Every structure is written in C-alpha cells, then in structure tokens.
C-alpha cells in the first residue's frame, strides 16, 4: 500500500533540509509543503499532525516532529 509521506517545512529551517536529504538518500518519495507560503498546509500541520515545529513528517498515523534520524529509520523500516 502506497502511503503518502508529507513533510512540512520553512525555508530557513536547517533540519528540514537534513530531513529531505535523508529521505532523498534513501530514495523515499514525499510531498513537501512550505508552511510559510501555504496557509492551508500550515493549518493542516497544526490540526491533523498536532505539530507547531518544523520539520514535521506525517504519513498514515505517524507523526515525526523534528529531524530524528533514528526515529525515521525505525518508522520507515530502513
């Protein structure tokens, strides 16, 4: 089953870049939402993912707040 991985970012956030690099290095596809420009995405991040920090990575019922390599490896089965 294809699960859509959504990553919410701001342009000045270095951990967001690291999170995206990590996903790219492992060939994992994702959709990025710049929550500075995209207000709807910002509200979605706050309400659905219950997060007020970037990067927030949401897929299925999983929410990872911040760039946590160990947690990403574990939850993505890497």
């Amino acid at each position: 089953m294809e699960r859509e991985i959504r990553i919410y970012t701001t342009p000045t956030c270095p951990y967001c870049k690291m999170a995206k690099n990590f996903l790219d290095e492992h060939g994992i596809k994702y959709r990025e939402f710049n929550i500075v420009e995209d207000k709807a995405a910002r509200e979605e991040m706050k309400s659905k993912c219950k997060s007020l920090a970037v990067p927030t990575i949401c897929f299925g019922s999983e929410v990872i707040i911040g760039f946590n390599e160990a947690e990403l490896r574990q939850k993505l089965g890497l």
Partner: protein
Amino acid sequence: MTAAVYAARKKLNALLLSHNIGGQVLWTSGVENYMGYQFIEGPELMERFREQVQQFPIDIRTGEKVSSLSRTNDGFELTTDGGARYQAKAVIIATGKRPRQLNVPGEERLRGRGVTYCATCDGPLFAGENVAVIGGGNSALEAVDDMTKIAEQVYLVSLTPLTGDQILIDRVKAASNLTMYLEHEVLEIQGEARVEAIRIRDLKSKQERKLLVGGVFIEIGLIPNSEAFRRTVRLNSLGEIEVNCSNETAVPGLFAAGDVTNVPEKQIVVAAGEGAKAALQAHRYLQRLTR
C-alpha cells in the same frame, strides 16, 4: 569534520561518529566571519564541510550519540545510545554544545507544540500570534528582532538585565509590539495540546503574571555535550572538557576540540582550527605508541 580530514590525510583509520552533521552552525542563518566566505548560510557551510569529508576514506556514522566512553587495554571503547560499540586507539571529542533548557513544568511536554529552541526554524509558524522569547543575550534579541516583524505581540522575559550587544538592543527596543519583562523568571509553560500561556514572576516584587502566548522561544544559552565523558575526563565548573593548548586531556590518547572544551572563544573558525590541532596531536601520539 576538520579533525577527521586531518586524520585521514595522515592515513589514519578514521571514524566520524555524530548525532548530526553540522551541530550549532546549522542554527546560524548567516556566517560572515569564516574566512574565504564573505557571507554564507550556516547549513550551506556545513554542506561544503561535509562534501570535503566525503573526499576522504572516512567512515561516517550519524544519527547516534555516544553515551559512554571507557578506557581499555588497547585504548578506548565507545558505546552509542543505539547500542553500537566502537574501539579506538585514540579519540577526539568534538561534541559541541546544545541549548540550555528552562526546566519548568510544561516545557518538555509542549516541545514541538509551541516550545522551541530554534527561532530560525519555527518562527514563521507563529505569524500573527503572541509569542514569548526567553533570554537576554544576543540569541534572544535576534529572535525578538525576527518575531516583532511577524508576530502580533512579543514578550521578552529575561532573568537579568539585557546582556546582548547594544546595537541589537537599540534595534529591538524600537518595535511597537514588544513588551519586556526583565529580571523575571518563568515559572510554568501552560497549555493542553499546544502552548497557551506562560506564568512569570518578578524577581524583586514577587508578583506573578500570566502572559497569553502561542509560542515560547527559549534562548538562554548553551551547555557542553560532555555528560557521556564525565567519568573519564576532567570537566571544569561550566561542564567543559579541560584541554591544554595541544588539545590533550589528562588521559593519554584522549583529545578534545571546539566548543565542548575550555577554549575561551566559541567560534566556527576556532573550532575548526582546534579540530585540526587535535588530529595532528593524535597522530603524533599514535606514532609514539608504535615505536
């Protein structure tokens, strides 16, 4: 990273173990005093460092923190929080510093839900809301400067009078949506699913007050990442690893470099230079061992 490159160029078998690549420099939006780059963003500078490290046969393992270090007959054994173990004849500790926490109720629970230590990351999330910035130094003042431009109201809460640069103090004082509470302490961060308010107390009058805010930016200084080495190496009163000017600790074969040490200047160029010195000294040490 500099230590790793110097070690590799001396044909030493080098392992670079780190929680992340870049450390504190990642939080810096603009670096204007690292020679050769008149202006470069912190993350980009660290990317250039990383690319250089990758030119050499250096084993890089990230995502784990070293949780303990002990001496063995052959040198040292390190254990990470993930349970991995590594052995080495020489070790260079360059773990830097991390943000100090307030240690008040609500802080840990609401981390990522309104409590943040990275204003450059999370600032935009609080546009149009009331926010509090905790601290009185340059980092706090820079956060205030950024947030007064996008937040509704900004409250600056500092335990002491402001200690930042005057030029920054003058700049933020001009903002019409800033209220400062100097010589106040934070008692609690409140909220259910997210930050809703903070409770503060005037240190002199003891009067308490509640500020309704959606975000709290904690900028109260940095502490050395030295806990894992506390039993093996001497720390000063600030928790920094004591080294001499050759980056040697009191333990033969154990070196340290950068912000985690007692080097007085915490600057990128200094940390990089210290890393190089430590690697060269480690090489000399290893040569003496094999004689």
